[in-house]
């Protein structure tokens, strides 16, 4: 029944799609680290001392993991790191949603958008759904890898 989920045809496409998504997400942050640092600061979850190092390094982790998935190098490790990042994003946005802190997620665009509070809350809910979708893609890759081993 679940054979189709581990089918190589699907796995390759999911792997490349997830890789491309992370490469595309990383580029604006690499180009403009101060804006991304501002976005991380707005989450109010990270100590000030870690905001700037995180803004510098995290986009490069996304880029390298995305490239690893596209090129099929260290797939397992890249998939695990990406899943961990997605879980972190989901938790961070959920905490701010519960706090009532309307923020721009800074996922694919780090320019300051002049959105209303309501628009930001709506975006945050959509981002959680989108990240869950990507987490399911990572789960498919993990499932396919376990089937390949056995």
């Amino acid at each position, binding site marked *: 029944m679940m054979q189709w989920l581990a089918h190589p045809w699907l796995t390759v496409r999911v792997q490349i799609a997830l890789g491309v998504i992370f490469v595309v997400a990383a580029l604006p942050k690499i180009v403009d680290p*101060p804006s991304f640092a501002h976005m991380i600061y707005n989450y109010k979850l990270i100590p000030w001392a870690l905001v700037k190092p995180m803004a510098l*390094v995290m986009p490069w982790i996304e880029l390298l993991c995305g490239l690893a998935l596209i090129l099929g190098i260290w797939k397992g*490790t890249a998939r695990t*790191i990406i899943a961990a990042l997605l879980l972190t994003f989901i938790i961070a946005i959920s905490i701010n949603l519960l706090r009532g802190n309307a923020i721009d997620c800074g996922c694919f665009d780090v320019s300051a958008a002049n959105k209303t509070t309501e628009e930001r809350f709506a975006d945050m809910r959509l981002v959680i759904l989108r990240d869950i979708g990507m987490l399911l893609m990572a789960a498919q890759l993990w499932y396919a890898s376990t089937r390949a081993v056995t």
Partner: protein
Amino acid sequence: MNWRKHFVEAATLIVAAAACAMVANAFASKERKLVVVPQSAPRPVVAAPQPTPEPITQPTTTTPTTATLSTTATTTTVNRPPATTPKKPAPTPPQPEKIFNPHPDKAYIEIHGDDVEALHKKGVLFLDARRTSVYEQGHITGARPFSVWESDIDEKVNKLFTERSDPRDQNLPIVIYCSGGDCEDSHMLAQKLWGIQFNNVYVYKDGFPDWQKRGLPIHTGSAP
């Protein structure tokens, strides 16, 4: 699953990412660069007469204070008119001018549009805490770009301190603004300036959008 191999690969990816980040940051323009270790703020040569707050190099939460501005006490001598004089509408008394006194115990005071406009007319220094790219698209006429997120912020603050090294100059009002709403950049910059003894800093609470709404003078480009 080979955990050791997994761990080595993950560590390699993270170290490679950190190395790429450092190299990219080293070659980035000053507006796109991040200073991970901030420079220390300059110490004043002459001690200011007010109690000295500790320098602050990172944003901390300070309870914002809504403007409670004192007004000059105006004493006017009114000659009572004789009873036979026909009644005339009483002239409206001149609006007492607000005084923006130094407040060394507070990093900043939040003020609103009318006070900001009055200070702008007086030629008070305005600092724009938004990103330089946003500043160039339009800013309050005369305001200088002072983005707290850009690598040259300490350099700009040091230069301002040099310009106003006299303690009397440090008590001159400075107005800082960003995008209004929940924007905290102006508060962060105010904390930074308070840390080096600028004791008369005001934050324009409603920020640039309010200024635009009021139809007040705006300048575009990199020049103030």
